[in-house]
């Protein structure tokens, strides 16, 4: 083809198209890498955590003789005693105290294996001696050692022994903290959003409030921890690491995001609805209460759920107000010390015992399932009630 402008158009077009393809490839690579990371991350966590849902158990003979009050280890074959969870052995005397018929008898029981035995049965690194490994092998062949579903993980609290540690008390703590967060932040945030959208005159004060809310939403979460420490704990004397201080701290953090999403939901209601109600003689408050709020409720709820799920995964401010302490018990009141799921994950992750690594990953899986189902609920709500005016 003849060259019109004195240079090779064909080559130039080819170059331009090559550049186009390259650019497109960059864009696809970027999104594919993000997707790949997500897949890799999920698979990695699942592989690391899946084994925690199964727990080694041993069928052993317990000899309830009176001598064991002096030394509980005597109840078991000395070889077996080394591969059984210490928690069980410690409990034998109190079991005999509770049930007087036990004394002098021998029973066969399924009990928890020690963390190292458990790890050996899962073919993970462990500290069992070769002799103990042989014993476990032979027990597995005889069927007196098995990997069973780990119900204890869901029903018990934290423990220093990995085989006993569970997420129940952390989950209950998370629930209470979220409940308080919702109670403190939701009413105030919705009232604030209603005022700003429906009633506020455009003056200096409202502008300051608006700028403030945007700034609050962008403050690093750890600063809220410092705030909680300085104001709630040192100044007001709220108990450290209590459910109350966690809920208060997180509600300060969640409030701006609920306000912002509530305002967006209220703003999406067309003015014609308000005008129609006003024209029929409704007062401004009636317009809000009877029309604007019910119509924007799905949007408000969506924003609230997303805000709460963010609060549920938040760890840094809670570390500052002391919610990473070792607390194995379930919280019974708002002032009792508690831990929450992310803090529990953090504590386990920093533990040096290997068996805690799988518990950490399993805890992460539970947390992710909870968070994803909250987010899915939010998306479902949004899709179900989304309407075009």
């Amino acid at each position, binding site marked *: 083809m003849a060259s019109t402008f004195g240079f090779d158009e064909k080559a130039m077009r080819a170059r331009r198209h090559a550049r186009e393809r390259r650019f497109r490839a960059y864009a696809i690579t970027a999104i594919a890498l*993000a997707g790949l990371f997500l897949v890799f991350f999920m698979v990695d966590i699942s592989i690391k955590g899946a084994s925690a849902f199964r727990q080694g158990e041993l069928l052993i003979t317990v000899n309830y003789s009176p001598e064991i009050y002096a030394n509980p280890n005597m109840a078991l074959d000395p070889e077996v005693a080394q591969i059984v969870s210490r928690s069980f052995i410690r409990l034998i005397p109190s079991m005999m105290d509770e049930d007087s018929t036990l004394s002098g008898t021998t029973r066969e029981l399924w009990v928890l294996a020690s963390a190292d035995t458990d790890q050996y049965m899962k073919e993970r690194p462990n500290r069992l001696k070769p002799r103990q490994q042989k014993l476990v092998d032979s027990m597995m062949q005889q069927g007196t050692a098995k990997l069973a579903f780990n119900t204890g993980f869901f029903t018990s609290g934290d423990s220093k022994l990995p085989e006993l540690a569970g997420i129940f008390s952390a989950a209950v703590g998370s629930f209470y903290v979220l409940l308080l967060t919702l109670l403190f932040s939701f009413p105030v945030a919705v*009232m604030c959003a209603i005022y*700003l959208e429906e009633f506020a005159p455009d003056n200096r004060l409202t502008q300051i409030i608006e700028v403030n809310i945007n700034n609050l939403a962008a403050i690093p979460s750890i600063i809220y921890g410092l705030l909680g420490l300085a104001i709630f704990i040192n100044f007001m004397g709220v108990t450290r690491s209590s459910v109350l201080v966690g809920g208060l701290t997180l509600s300060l953090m969640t409030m701006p995001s609920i306000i912002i999403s509530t305002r967006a939901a209220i703003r999406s209601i067309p003015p014609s609805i308000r005008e129609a109600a006003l024209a029929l003689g409704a007062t401004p408050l009636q317009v809000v209460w009877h029309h604007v709020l019910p119509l924007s409720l799905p949007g408000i709820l969506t924003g609230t759920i997303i805000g709460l799920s963010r609060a549920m995964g938040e760890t840094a401010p809670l570390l500052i107000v002391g919610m990473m302490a070792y607390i194995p018990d379930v919280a019974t009141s708002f002032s009792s010390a508690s831990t929450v799921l*992310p803090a529990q994950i953090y504590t386990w992750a920093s533990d040096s015992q290997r068996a805690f690594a799988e518990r950490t990953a399993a805890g992460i899986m539970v947390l992710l399932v909870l968070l994803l189902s909250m*987010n899915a609920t939010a998306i479902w709500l949004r899709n179900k009630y989304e309407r075009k005016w």
Partner: protein
Amino acid sequence: MTLGSALQLAFMLIVPLAVLGFALANRQTQADNARGTEHHSPRAYYAWYSVCWVALPAILIFFFASLLHLLHLVTIPSTILLVGAVGLGIFGLYFSQKTISKEFRAIHRVEKVVRVTLIAASSISILITIGTVVSVVFEAMHFFKLVGLWNFLTGTKWSPETAFLFSTGRADSSVAPPEFGSVPLFAGTFYITAIAMLVAGPMGLFAAIYMAEYATPAVRKIAKPALEILAGIPTVVYGFFAAITVSPFIVQVATSLGLQADFTNALAPGLVMGVMIIPLVSSLSDDVINAVPQAMREGSYALGATQSETITKVILPAALPGVVSALLLAISRAVGETMIVVMAAGLMPNLTWNPLKSMTTVTVSIVDSLTGDQAFDSPQTLSAFGLGLVLLVVTLCLNVVSLVVIRKFREQYE
């Protein structure tokens, strides 16, 4: 009786009183209606008017009493508070029932009360801001009194461990004095932030370009929620992933290349933090790219430009303020991020350019100094507030600049 139990008791007494007021007013207006009297306002508002009179005085009394108590100004005995609050509640009940009449405009009164409540709720954001700034500044002042602002800002050595010995007077000449030079902390913070932005900037931007310009609706429908999932993963989980999977991997790769890498290197948290920030960059950029009017694209295509030429020469320049503001927000997020660095970045302050070395950041030092068992007035504990103040100032500046960029340079397409 403590203030807390008085509050509880008052709550238990005031709620039934309010319900009683509601019921009485309701009954009276109903009876009036039955006799054929037309009230000025809808009936429910008379009932709510009564509730306001019963509950509001009690709430206000307890609010101000708690405030005075907390500020250590005056402590009013709780019994007096309780009696006063409940007494006023009973008086309010009596008074409100007296006022209810045919001509009484209850609706306007109730609306006024509600409006004031709404204003009070909105002002809480100001209170939180003031509270944050005052509490952090106040504690930071204590710290700077002990350490000195200039030393803090320019010192290159951070070793606060011995501070508690000095504050309790147990130190002798063999103990090195604590040092609070924050330069290595800020260097570490900005270094890790830079690594994160090297990941999140290009990837987030290209992801946004792909979703806004190239993706078919079907692909977009999958890609967008996938990115949202990335945004919803808690940072403690990212931290675990960085420490357990990414760090050992980097150490392995470095060793096979003949390099020396620390187990808590700066690269792992940087990379993972970058992935964490991708959704922030991409969703904000996606919004601004979508906001560029279609006519500009069509104009560019009409002149014969390819799609990539249109994007780089027309759309991105038009969307630039929005993109810049998204990147600034991402930087502020990375600077303030805590859990990933706490779990994967190490505790040793280290002034180095080598990303394979251990580094520490401002947020790590804050957590580190507040999770020990020290007295609250020890310089080490207080240093957290000094660092927090600087962190607050830096992130607020970034946010303000990003808002200004958006507002100043926004193109108007009309």
